């Protein structure tokens, strides 16, 4: 019984090595940062393009104007994802 307790204690020590735990936490945080940062813009771009397509179908003569606004909107929304991505690469690799 005592031997078993020793083995369990050693395994627990190995599992909670502070350096490993820190690396694991950093990797998980970086993954969450990128994942969460990509979800919001994804929803935003979907909504934006859906509304733009609706507007173009309803008023085809204004399609050029809507497309310009849509393109700029997409690019601005995507900037949020890029910020999340840069935070990810700085947390993970820098």
């Amino acid at each position, binding site marked *: 019984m005592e031997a078993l307790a020793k083995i369990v204690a050693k395994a627990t020590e190995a599992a909670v090595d502070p350096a490993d735990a820190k690396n694991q936490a950093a990797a998980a945080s970086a993954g969450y940062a990128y994942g969460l940062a990509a979800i919001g813009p994804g929803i935003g771009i979907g909504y934006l*393009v859906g509304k733009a397509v609706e507007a173009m179908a309803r008023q085809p003569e204004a399609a*050029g*104007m809507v*497309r*310009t606004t849509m*393109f700029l909107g997409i690019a601005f929304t995507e*900037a949020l994802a890029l910020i999340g991505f840069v935070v990810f690469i*700085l947390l993970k690799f820098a």
Partner: protein
Amino acid sequence: MNAPANPLTTRFDGPAPEAQVTRHMLKRGSVAIPVLVAVAGFIWGADGALGCLYGMALVFVNFALAAGLISLTARISLALMMGAVLFGYLLRLGIIFLAVILVRDASWVSLPALGFTIIATHLGLLFWELRHVSATLAFPGLKPEPNPQSKTMSDKRMRKRKRTGRES
């Protein structure tokens, strides 16, 4: 009130305003390359300058791909355009991710400089371009450029507006 057209069959064969805006943006961005590279080189050294160049190339490819996908698919159908934009978003994020993963251990690139450049160039070019976008029924893309040779009143007014930066 007009009934909405079917997005599956509606298509636009005319000029693509997003391609025009992107070409203009890339032209202006290429003017800003030396300035940004010099700033990055001053802060992070030669690695920073190379990282900055790489980041700018990534942003340019990202804009060109976005505009190209929209222009190409709008000629086929609106529904396809919507799909292309959504999957294009994933594709472009994937391309940027792969491009950064490929150089993450390279000795010639500074990751902070690369990250800073991606954000600064993307947002900087967009805000810069907002000054030149018209988005009206007559000019759906960029604002019309005044003709320097013309003596007509409208061109004179346009030149004055451009000089003072005031919209009437």
